[in-house]
């Protein structure tokens, strides 16, 4: 038997059975409240919440405690929690992560780990968007040249698949982004903002938003923060539903003989739509009141206040 194997078995022997699920929470942020609540309710097992408070040393101490008294599974909320669960917990403890954008970037991948992604399936985003803005035929997407996130290509493909004409423009700098945004706003029926830190700086967002208002076209975003800041609407994952999905993953792992690593991370299955009614009025978008049934929340444009 190989040395490596012996050590692995030694590690396995350290594992002890527990009967509760540990929730690691990266920071004390309200955004985690809903998934924790829905997760606990849906799982129906005892849970213990551990606040990492964004503190690395504290997180390592918690990880050490969990290693000595292992829970039956871990829900890691946020990138830091997932990071510590990936790297500091024994691989014998199943881990489900959530609320982590682009988990591949953190190397969240392994036999003991799966999760709920943060990216909404683009088809679901477009379905919601087109319901509220059915006249959109041409949609522009700004993306930095360095952004190789597959989600970008998926978004483009999804838009094409529903018959939209897509204009995806690559940019390499803020100045480039502004130039492209101005042109895009003038020649498209809507602009779709996707996660891209080069494109989505406060400066460029402000500019893109202004161009969208000037041309009276919808600006579709991916987070509520951007709707607050002046995008028309977002179709974002529903945090409560994410908690339920995470609970389903944990239940599946515990109740069936499923190794977490063989379960592909799942996409959010329920959306939360937030509409900025000030922007809606500014661009003259009329929405049938019945359709507003499908909007979870309306906000006012904080950027204008």
């Amino acid at each position, binding site marked *: 038997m190989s040395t490596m194997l012996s050590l692995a078995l030694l590690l396995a022997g350290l594992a002890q059975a527990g009967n509760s699920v540990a929730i690691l929470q990266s920071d004390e942020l*309200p955004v985690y409240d809903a998934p924790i609540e829905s997760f606990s309710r849906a799982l129906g097992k005892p849970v213990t919440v551990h606040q990492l408070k964004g503190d690395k040393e504290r997180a390592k101490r918690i990880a050490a405690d969990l290693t000595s008294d292992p829970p039956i599974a871990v829900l890691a909320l946020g990138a830091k929690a997932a990071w510590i669960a990936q790297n500091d917990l024994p691989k*014998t403890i199943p881990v489900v992560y959530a609320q982590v*954008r682009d988990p591949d970037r953190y190397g*969240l991948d392994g036999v003991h780990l799966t999760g709920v992604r943060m990216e909404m399936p683009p088809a679901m985003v477009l*379905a919601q968007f087109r319901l509220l803005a059915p006249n959109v035929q041409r949609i522009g997407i700004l993306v930095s040249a360095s952004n*190789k996130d597959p989600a970008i290509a998926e978004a483009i493909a999804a838009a094409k698949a529903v018959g939209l004409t897509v204009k995806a423009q690559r940019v390499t700098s803020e100045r480039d982004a502004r130039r492209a945004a101005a042109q895009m706003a003038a020649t498209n029926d809507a602009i779709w903002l996707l996660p891209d830190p080069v494109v989505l700086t406060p400066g460029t967002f*402000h500019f893109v938003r202004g161009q969208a208002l000037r041309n009276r076209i919808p600006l579709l975003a991916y987070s509520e923060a951007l709707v607050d800041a002046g995008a028309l609407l977002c179709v974002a994952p529903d945090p409560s539903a994410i908690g339920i999905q995470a609970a389903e993953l944990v239940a599946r792992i515990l109740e069936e003989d499923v190794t977490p690593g063989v379960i592909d991370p799942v996409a959010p299955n329920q959306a939360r739509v937030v509409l900025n009614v000030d922007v809606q009025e500014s661009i003259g978008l009329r929405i049938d009141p019945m359709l507003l049934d499908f909007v979870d929340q309306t906000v006012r444009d904080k*950027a204008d206040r």
Partner: protein
Amino acid sequence: MTTESAPRRYGDYVLLESLGRGGMSAVDLARRSVDSANYVRFLVIKRILRKNHHDPTFVRMFMDEARINAELQHENIAQVYDFGENGGEWYLAMEYVPGVDLRQIQKAVAKQQPGSLLPPRIALRVLHDVLSALQYAHDRVDTYGRPMRIVHRDVNPRNIMVSVRGEVKLIDFGVAKADTRHDQTTGQTIKGKFAYMAPEQIDSDKPVDGRADLFAVGLLLQELLTGTHPFRHLTEIQIIHRLMADRIEPMPDAPAPLDAAAVRDVRDRILSADPDKRHPDARTLQADLVRLAAPLGGLASSAELAGFFRRADPDTAARIAQRLQHWKDSRPAPAPLRPEQVDDGDSLGLPDDTWASDARTHEVPKDWDASPDLGTVADSAPSASTVADPLPAPLIEPTEDSQSASSVVLAPEPRRGLSVAAALGIGGGLGLLFIGGLGVAFLMMSQPDKPPPVHDASAQTRPVDDTPKAPVPQAKVPEEDAATAPEAPPPTPKSGRPKKTGPKPKKAEPKKAAPEAPPAEPDPPPAETKEAPPPDPPKEAPPAEPATGETGFLFATSRPKGMEVWVGGKKLGVTPVRQHPLPVGAHTVVFRDPVSGEKIEQRVQVLTNQSAMVSVTQ
């Protein structure tokens, strides 16, 4: 990524509908036909997603699967017809097995009556056929007469297909070992599913031969005849521990009329840790199974197996028949896609070498990166702009990510397979290194799409209908000019703590919730369920626009709100019901007043990935 578009021409084939899609590859039901000869053959096309063509390991595995499978022509092995490249994609054309995998059969049986098992004659017949396939594979020589020494290494219920015709097919030689493999497995890589893995597959010092597959059959034997599995509820490390310590729990008695002692003897022999103590080959084990079945009347026949399938899972059997009939008679294939319609992200022309400096790494929890190999240990303060940053702070999701969004940390490029290795750098221990190896193995097993290549996805897919879209209330943008909106002041820079959003409305029930009974009064919801095929399969070509999936989305609301919404006998929720996936096709939506029981019906046409909205006012 390749746009899903069905049906569409794909080389000599027509892709009809998606059967599954993983991170690495996609599997479609396809058809090869010669109209003038009234010839139709259904098959399965498995293709590597173009974005994964750069992954040499996966491509090699794919090619190995093709190479090994191409040498195998046996009635109990799903055959590979063709292997090649189309439009820059590698693909395998494989036999389509109209059925489901053994695990689904087990579930269907258990669903009918909790705790019930496959009849022992059926179970033994299935295993007997699997052993036929294994014996053939183990003995196979290549075209030049050289022994191929093929070992499947992943015999498990998901890789055993049972067809509605009573055939048993072993599938997925994706991790098979053979002397002709280009991607020779080394001791550091473990392939196969742990719950069905033989000890020698785990211990790199020991050679693996066909007897490892027999070990898996032994575990299946216990599982099918007793409903137990010695490794159930164990983690993979615990499984390894048990295997290496030769500590497999005794088997409970197989129920009468089986000879429990005889079954135990066979099972114990197969599960010997020492391969030399097992049955020497599949044929010998087959003989034992025949002996076990003899007091029961012998192994079940194909006709019995087919009949059992229809009784155990009548819905699936019916759906498969409907599907094949539908696709046999359906429209001719549309014109080939133009290249620009297949957008895999490469069309953006994004350079490959920019990841390392990608500003997206800002979101890496910088202060958490303890490994010198992985990047810079930066300031741990969760503020937005504490460290010099050559790029403006991005606007990102209000999670803790955003708090650490500003400092420059060049994270590693944690790609599949390598990511575990990256984690190992942190762990540092050899034990973790080994586990990392397991991780790599699992990734290699799981990422190349686990949906079995000939797995019948049971008809959630429906043809794209070319009827007009469902009515959607038109929200028009006024055409008159409006005053140019003044530009607002810049948005407030993101603070560390995101605001708390308002109260969230209650959502639909969790997806695991059992569907409620349909309304009893005054009559049941309409017949076209989401399982049922469209009543009149379209004869015309599909719409020109490419379709990316097999479902669309239903939005339903009412005045007053709170009406129950039913489709195909299933309650979807109460209004407003939104974005409920439905198979493409015509549906009748039934709105039901929960108090008065009054019902209102609305027809709706669901198109691929499109929103279909219906509303009623009482």
